[in-house]
């Protein structure tokens, strides 16, 4: 058999990618990123029937103020301006921004709370659309974490470890479960920030890193401008046809190499280049919004067509979910109101409210919410007491607060229209049905059909898992 025949028999694109991919094709695919197969070295998953097939994590980077937005505590207004009791604070540590502050006056919420829907969830007037969706959502008001600074807290939330170097949740899931798409990465990350550009939290790549898992499982960051995927476009002056011709030649020469040298890696290489070519058309198709009807675009709000905005990213998250992407990590910065609570929180909420609600609604009307898990929340909450000077209302702020905060979840396997857990009367400490970050992670894994204690990866001699040696599934929130 000459190389030509060999290539046509073994390596035609149909043989490589068709339903009945066999032989070299499946061998090669097994080691590529976009494979439908989970990693050959991963334990057999799922452990049990999953409730959700994919996750969209709307990470509110910078930490939204739970006491202004969700966790209604009448006592705060009653005690406004009075010192928060030491019995509540109990020697806890804060960031250096208020760690040394002598006075810790209680700061009443700057918004209006009202009850929403059948479930009667309390949501701030700053988030009317999210409030209107309350019956689809499950609020957890007893979240708590260990870190008082952004980067370690976000790292902890997304990777289970406080310092850089552990695999992110999305990496774990694509490693263990594989992907449902061959044309797109299994784990996609998008970032945006508030229009005011008020904050400076950086999106570190270790928030979506693969840690000690093979690096093909790291999140692929879709960029906010230009090519969504780095190096996606052909060089200037090289048409798609020319690229095709070039890849045909490349495939033929590689097939000769495979015939003569026999390294299975060469087959992988051939598949890898073909997938790259396909991604060059599937990504532009993904980002082409011309077929989205006006009423859908309107739902996501005025920024929806601006690449890199939160609204655009929410719409993109739905499109990625439709196409089988396993984990979408959408990060939106601008919640870090140390000195601008009164001026910025409302703007920030306006940016986020409609798109977040629209995403849940849009998924629901397409039947996708059933098996898509949506999570909305920050890395911690904000202090129920004031950062700053109480007489200077324009510069009111709240500091980082890991001891209680609120998140909400919706969709795949989550009980809709409920509130789980409580913080104390100051919104200071998680008080009832406390949910630790590792519990949340265990719950997400559970919904994906995974026993978090049994999903491990051996590295440096230890069986590592997302939840370290902790974490309990939060059963009451399960549907």
């Amino acid at each position, binding site marked *: 058999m000459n190389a030509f025949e060999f290539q046509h028999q073994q390596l035609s694109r149909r043989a490589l990618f068709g339903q009945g991919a066999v032989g070299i094709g499946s061998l090669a695919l097994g*080691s590529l*990123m976009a494979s439908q197969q989970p990693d050959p070295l991963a334990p057999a998953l799922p452990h049990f029937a999953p409730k959700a097939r994919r996750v969209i994590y709307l990470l509110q980077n910078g930490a939204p103020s739970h006491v202004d937005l969700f966790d209604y505590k009448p006592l705060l207004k009653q005690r406004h301006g009075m010192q928060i009791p030491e019995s509540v604070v109990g020697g806890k*540590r804060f*960031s*250096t*921004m208020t760690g040394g502050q002598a006075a810790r006056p209680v700061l009443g919420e700057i918004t209006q709370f009202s009850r929403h829907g059948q479930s009667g969830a309390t949501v701030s007037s700053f988030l009317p659309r999210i409030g209107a969706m309350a019956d689809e959502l499950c609020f957890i008001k007893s979240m708590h974490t260990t870190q008082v*600074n952004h*980067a370690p807290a976000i790292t902890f939330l997304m990777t289970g470890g406080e310092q*850089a*170097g552990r695999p992110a949740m999305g990496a774990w899931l694509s490693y263990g479960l594989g992907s449902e798409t061959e044309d797109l*990465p299994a784990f996609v990350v998008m970032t945006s920030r508030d229009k*005011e*550009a*008020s904050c*400076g939290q*950086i999106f*570190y790549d*270790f928030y979506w890193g693969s840690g000690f898992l*093979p*690096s093909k499982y790291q999140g*692929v960051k879709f960029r906010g*401008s230009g090519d969504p*995927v*780095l*190096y*996606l476009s052909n*060089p200037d*002056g*090289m*048409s798609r046809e*020319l*690229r095709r*011709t*070039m*890849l045909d*030649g*490349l495939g*033929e020469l*590689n097939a000769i*190499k495979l015939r*003569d*040298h*026999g*390294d*299975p*890696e060469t087959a992988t290489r051939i598949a*890898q*280049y073909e*997938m*790259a070519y396909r*991604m060059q058309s599937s990504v532009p198709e993904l980002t082409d919004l011309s077929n989205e009807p006006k009423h859908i675009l309107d739902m996501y709000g005025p920024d929806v067509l601006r690449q890199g905005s939160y609204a655009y990213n929410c719409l993109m998250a739905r499109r990625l979910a439709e196409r089988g992407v396993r984990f979408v990590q959408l990060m939106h910065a601008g919640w870090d109101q140390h*000195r601008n609570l009164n001026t910025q929180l409302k703007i920030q909420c306006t940016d986020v409210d409609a798109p977040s609600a629209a995403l849940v609604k849009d998924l629901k009307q397409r039947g996708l919410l059933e098996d898509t898990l949506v999570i909305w929340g920050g890395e911690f909450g904000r202090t129920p007491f004031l950062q700053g000077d109480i007489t200077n209302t*324009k*510069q009111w702020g709240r500091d*980082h607060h890991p001891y209680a905060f609120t998140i909400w979840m919706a969709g795949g396997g989550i009980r809709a229209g409920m509130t789980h857990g409580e913080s104390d009367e100051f919104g200071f400490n998680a008080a009832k049905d406390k949910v630790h970050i590792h519990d949340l992670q265990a719950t997400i894994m559970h919904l994906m059909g995974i026993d978090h*204690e049994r999903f491990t990866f051996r590295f*440096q*001699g*230890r*069986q590592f898992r997302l939840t370290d040696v902790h974490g309990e599934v939060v059963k009451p929130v399960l549907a």
Partner: protein
Amino acid sequence: MKGFTFLLTLAIALPCRAAVDFSRDIQPILSENCYHCHGPDANHRKADLRLDDEKAAKTGKIILPGKANESELIHRIVSDDPDEVMPTPKSNRKLTDSQKKLLKQWIAEGANWGKHWAFEPVIRPKVPTGAKHPIDAFVRQKLAEVGLEPNPPARRETLVRRLSLDLIGLPPDPAEKSEPTALIEKLLSSVHFGERWAWEWLDAARYADTNGYQGDPERTMWPWRDWVVSAINANMPYDQFTVWQIAGDLLPNATEEQKIATGFNRNHMINGEGGRIAEETRVENVMDRVETTGTVWLGLTMQCTKCHDHKFDPLTMRDYYALYDAFNQTSEDGVARSGQAAPAMDLSTPDELERSKKAEAMVHAIANELDAFELKKFPRPAGRPLTESAAIDLPGNLPAYIAKTVPRNRGVDPLLEAIGYFKDKDSEYTKLLQRLLAAQREKLAAKNAVTKVMIMDTLPKLRETYQLEKGAYDKPTTTKVSFTTPAVLPPLADGAPKNRLGLAQWLVSRQNPLTARVTVNRFWQSIFGVGLVKTAEDFGVQGEVPPHRELLDWLAAEFMESGWDVKRLLRLIVTSETYQQSSEHVVRASARSEGVKKNGLKPELQTDPENRLLARGPRFRMPAWMLRDQALALSGLLNPKLGGPGVKPYQPEGIWEEATFGKKTYQQDHGEALYRRTLYVFWRRIVGPTLLFDNSTRQVCAVKTSRTNTPLHALVTLNDTTFVEAARVLSEKVLHLSGDDETHLKQAFQIVTHREPKADELGVLRRQLLALRQQAASGASKLLKVGEAKTDPALKPAEHAAWTSLCLMLLNLDEVVSKE
């Protein structure tokens, strides 16, 4: 894939065993399945039973040597009762039948105990007979056991390319005619040798050009990097290389060079996030040094012992904090003001200082203009501050940023926010603010470019070190610890200094069982793709017991006894037939069926996908940095200049801006800086060079880089400007050679692969050229403008574009992206 899982147990499956060997056969089973609850960690030990200690394990009825059936251990592992069976079903661990059989056999044979192999002294094993070269002798012996034969030697041109890529990280000159033996010497003495071998060291040292974290300030550690390159080029013995980097400042009359070398321990990230507690950062830095030292020299996972005694290795929290104490004595305070946090060595030049002075003056001048402008914009009584004007009522942070801060003190963040606010409201004011922003950025950049190398020093009054509860900086326990080395390893020499110098000398003493093994293994890993110990980062009991343990020990002994001579070690490796054999995947089984029968080997092993048996030469996709260097070299663009500050080659637009919210702007270099080796590419820690895939992120110490294949990698080498430009310049080089299409095709192929094309390959190339010619004309003028290198106007654009595409294809061949 079956082969994969099978090979994980290779160490156990391989030897045809006469007697059970504790370290090789038993300890891995006990460690993996039992130590978690019955191991070294006293605080979490269950049932007061420990199986990591011979005396304890043989007390009572647990293990009765010679009496397998009466031993409780055997009883428990074969039990059907879920409440009784071990490991308990809850543990997610399970023994296989062959493991149970092994444990039984071991106890029946007397339950001989041993130390973990890597903690045993390095004793030079006897070289087996049967081959001239010691490496080959060890490898052939093992191959004979499984009935495999080595591959024949690689073709000469393949070997030349392999040697060149391995030793200097660059492809051979097409005109390279030296015989391999001469070539090896030439490469070992090339100045590019140090550049190539610095790469892995920089990964291990988590070297980068910024701090990481918020603000990600620039640092100037490049003199340290240049020191590494020159030390490697000078073949500085590895023991000295170690001592200088860990404790150069403590040597008598330490030289500037010796102090610069200590920058190794300042290369870690520094968290300067707003609100960050300085002491927390300082403690984190000290821990990073302990853990990096553990990984790089000892191959031990010290980080486990930060919070508790090790679950598997005989390492305690006390061991951790005893090492911590050695690194806890520098004057650094944890405040991340800049990338040049004290203690730092001032290596500034007059030019750098002049630039800084100028930038300062510029800020001053524009600030004065702003002062004048703001007097009008925010009217207030004469002589009164801005806080008494309308500026105090601006929204958000602006009262603090503008009203309370005089112009010359406004930094980048405040100015960005102010510009954002005023841009639609007052264009004249915005322009002034923008000018100030530019000046402030230049001032900062100039200040950060004044070369200062962060180094190690020692406080006049030493800190007291206490064990920290769960490693929390603010939770010291009452257990005071002072420096010593881990108890399980040989002690410090009598009279050794009780500080970093003592530590460094201990690491490289002949008695240390780990350093040489771990180091030799890393060199092996770079060359063969997988280390002799696959877990290059872990030589503890959970690490892999190397299938070629004797070879590793022999190399380690040879390395130490040669005076830690790195070039000698590499020469030894690359002169072996094992290294020089062909990398073709052909199973050469002399007695394959017998091998299978005799040793119970599964047939899958014969294909040995990771080449652990070394029946073929190494073949794997080169690291991304080497791909870029190769493309530059093949095209002739490579600028061979050594050393100096980092350079900024092509990068897609907006990467830094997006990652830093516009606070950092990537200012691409031009001219010859575009073509420097990748070693010199500026590394912003929070968003590293975009064209490097599968590399360490340089955030924490990494001694094992990952090798994966994703479509995204293909997109880099197909579309990145560097590669397209290299293809264009390469095609120009080919077209300038005399000859017709046929000759040019052969020459292009020959340059990139370092061999002649075969007849069928040439056939493909011919057809390609015709097809590309038909399609290349339309976009030719654009394609020829990719990259800044000049294009020869005498070449016909359509023709040049067709050849550019052809060369880009060649640069992407599997053979070309692989070291073969």
